[in-house]
């Protein structure tokens, strides 16, 4: 049995949890390769106009996996830190089932729904039952995988804090969802551009999720989406530690359209720019914006030092 994991969307949130889980069980899996222009083109064929870019990318990864494995792994995750996720994540299963109806795909999924405690563990338990894996073995594999994911996140978060303290370069907080900043086609070029301009990118996504979501309560009581809360919380927590912030968003993102506007209006003391990425080519617009943005940060720094 071979399981295909699409390198898209929630993979970037649960990478270690998923891979370690299958590692522990000795199940063979493949992860689709990094996103390229081709991935987006292939994905767009299965999507309607209004779907957001990350979903098009996601469908492109499914397209790659569709004839290379026995099962495609697509968990349904409804909540994180007791806040909602985007509807698109909950619809993944149905979306793929429908868009790829001609291919008879086998979809392997766990259903992480509801408000109860240990709901994730229960979801994995059901998954094991479906795969005819002994309860105790499945439970153990989950524990190990969960721990690995936890340590990985802790390490990432500490690493960011260290960079924040030690670097002398201007620091820019990148406010972007995991699947955007982690993506080789969307996020990586932005990180490279900033580094080339002599700026240290600080990635909001890498900070501790729990802490950020908690902090976001100070800013807004009503914002429903967990992952957006993470970004708002990160901005609130680190706004004084960085020189500026870049909001990186993909078009068209529903949650971001509300949340980004709120951040732009509420945080006036810190230089902020919004970059909207569509499937367009040509990085000239991005370069112009990032270059002038770093000019501002440098002027400000020199001004304060004088």
């Amino acid at each position, binding site marked *: 049995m071979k399981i295909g994991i699409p390198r898209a969307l929630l993979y970037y949130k649960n990478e270690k949890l998923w891979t370690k889980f299958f590692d522990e069980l000795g199940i063979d899996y493949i992860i689709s390769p990094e996103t*390229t222009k*081709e991935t987006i083109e292939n994905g767009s064929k299965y999507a309607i106009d209004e779907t957001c870019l990350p979903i098009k990318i996601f469908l492109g990864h499914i397209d790659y996996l569709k004839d290379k494995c026995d099962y495609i792994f697509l968990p349904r995750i409804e909540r994180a830190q007791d806040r909602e996720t985007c509807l698109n994540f909950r619809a993944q299963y149905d979306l793929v089932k429908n868009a790829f109806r001609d291919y008879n795909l086998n979809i392997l999924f766990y259903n992480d729904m509801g408000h109860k405690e240990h709901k994730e563990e229960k979801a994995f338990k059901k998954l094991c039952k479906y795969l005819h894996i002994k309860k105790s073995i499945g439970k153990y594999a989950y524990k190990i995988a969960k721990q690995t994911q936890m340590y990985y996140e802790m390490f990432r978060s500490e690493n960011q804090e260290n960079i924040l303290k030690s670097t002398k370069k201007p620091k820019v907080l990148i406010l972007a969802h995991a699947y955007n900043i982690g993506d080789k086609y969307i996020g990586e070029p932005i990180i490279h551009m900033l580094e080339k301009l002599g700026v240290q990118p600080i990635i909001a996504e890498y900070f501790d999720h729990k802490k950020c979501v908690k902090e976001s309560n100070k800013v807004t009581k009503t914002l429903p989406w967990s992952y957006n809360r993470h970004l708002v919380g990160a901005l609130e927590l680190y706004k004084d530690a960085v020189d500026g912030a870049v909001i990186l968003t993909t078009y068209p993102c529903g949650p971001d359209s509300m949340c980004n506007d709120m951040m732009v209006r509420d945080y006036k003391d810190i*230089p902020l720019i*919004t970059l909207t990425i569509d499937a367009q080519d040509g990085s000239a617009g991005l370069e112009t914006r990032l270059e002038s943005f770093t000019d501002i940060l440098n002027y*400000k720094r020199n001004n304060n030092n004088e």
Partner: protein
Amino acid sequence: MKGYLGIDIGSISTKGVVIDEDLNIVASEYLWTEGDPMGAVKRLLKVLENQLKDKDIKIVSVGTTGSARKLIGVMTNASVVKNEITAHAVGTTTLHPDVNTIFEIGGQDSKIIIIENGYVTDYAMNTLCAAGTGSFLSSQAHRLGVTVEEFGEIALKSQHPTNIAARCTVFAESDLVHKAQIGHSKEDIIAGLCKAVVTNYLNNIGKGKKFRPPIVFQGGVSKNVGVKKAFEDAVGHEVIVDKNGHLMGAFGVAVLAKKSGIEKDFSFDVADIKFRTTGFDCPKCANHCEIVCVFKDDKLIDSWGNKCDNGTVKIN
């Protein structure tokens, strides 16, 4: 005397300015790019060379800005290649040192630059949509049968500007047709359009920002007195339009070239050298980057467009 050349190559127009050591403009030209930045710059250089004929100016440094800055920077051996936002800000603050807010509406883009004590502290640019920029105004002028040049004057005659939906160009256009059909006068509609451009600008680009005077309004649309007046009505302050407002980017980058202190050989003969660019799709991975190579007299001098090292073109 030493001179500094600044070139601003936009999508629609190409601007060139030569300044002397005291930052006075000694030569300037504004012409259409016509989709051929290299050809436009060659024409520009010819004109500037003519203007400088009787003056004792030797150009020691070149700066380029605008969307084709990189290409033209390679062509002219530029010391400074700078984005248009910084260039505009430098240009305007040099001429108006006390400016706090710059409104700019060009042919296809619009931006706002906020300045404190001579330094840019914030800016915003239009994103995916070109609503309310110069090209929108010119197409609507055409629809109404007036030229862009007389547009502003007609708008000033209106007593009761018509309300036109400003959020989106497509809606604005259908709204405009509707208002004309139900009998609003032409001047009212034209004034309404100017107002719509301003409302759109302030809502989209200027959202959440404070507009502190003095305010300078520049870019092609600043020549339209109707839009200028609509800005003044909406903001409640006087809005300054500089007579050299359309040259500000070129002027700014010339100032930056001077400030950089880097002096490089430059000769107007560049206009006669054959430059050629070719583009190809890199076959080495699935990204298919479009790579551009620049040739000077059939010798490769630069290339760009690659996302990774695989696509690097060797330069001999």
